[in-house]
């Protein structure tokens, strides 16, 4: 089909051809973090059900969550949540018709990425400083 066009430019937005730009990164990350949070919903529900099943089951859950792989997953989910939430605000602003200017969209993409990282670090700092994440099991 493509052979009838002599124009060498790409026919469709294709990630291997397009130069990466920050609005594209934010867009892809929004979908990626959304899918990751779908998995996070299982972790959240498992936490709720574990709490309902009693102290023994809950202890098993917190032991798993407090292990190194568990903490890595939880940190990743925190980052996905912070990014998806902040970038979601960006989408809601767009829905109102504002913020579509090229420079504004690029700046807000950078802002959301940086803020998501800072917020994640802040949440984990709060969890560890005095509050003691690993005491969750009781």
């Amino acid at each position, binding site marked *: 089909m493509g052979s009838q066009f002599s124009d060498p430019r790409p026919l469709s937005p294709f990630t291997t051809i397009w130069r990466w730009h920050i609005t594209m990164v934010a867009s892809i990350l929004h979908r990626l973090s959304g899918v990751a949070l779908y998995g996070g*919903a299982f972790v*959240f529900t498992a936490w709720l059900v574990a*709490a309902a099943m009693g102290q023994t089951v809950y202890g098993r859950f917190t032991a798993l969550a407090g292990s190194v792989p568990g903490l890595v997953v939880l940190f990743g989910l925190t980052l996905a949540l912070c990014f998806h939430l902040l970038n979601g605000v960006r989408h809601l602003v767009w829905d109102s018709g504002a913020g579509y200017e090229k420079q504004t969209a690029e700046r807000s993409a950078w802002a959301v990425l940086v803020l998501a990282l800072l917020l994640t670090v802040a949440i984990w700092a*709060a969890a560890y400083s005095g*509050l003691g994440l690993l005491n*969750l099991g009781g």
Partner: protein
Amino acid sequence: MRTAFKIVTGLGPAHDGVGHFVRQRVTALVLLVLVPLFLFQFLASLNTGYGGVVAWLGSPFGALLTLVLVSAMIAHMRIGLRVVIEDYVSGGARRLLLLLNALTTLALWLAAVYALVKINFGG
């Protein structure tokens, strides 16, 4: 000459209009308020252990906040993954994945409701 009903309603062959679009944004707004609220409560309760967590989930405020949060979250992720599936998968696999998405989110919601009911009324 009469105009077809489906054209009047603007629903097209999917028999569904902007319902998902609107619902995705309404649940987003609810989550925008409740997720930070929940996170704040959660971080504050981290050092209270099992007893503190169950006491909070068993309080009217904690239970209702968690119920609304989990409901909005599951409604939001159900629509979200539906869009992803529709974008990347076609044919029979799409039908199967859409069905799985619907059943999984329903099961997840029921599990969360069961947990909250058990904590609050289970004795």
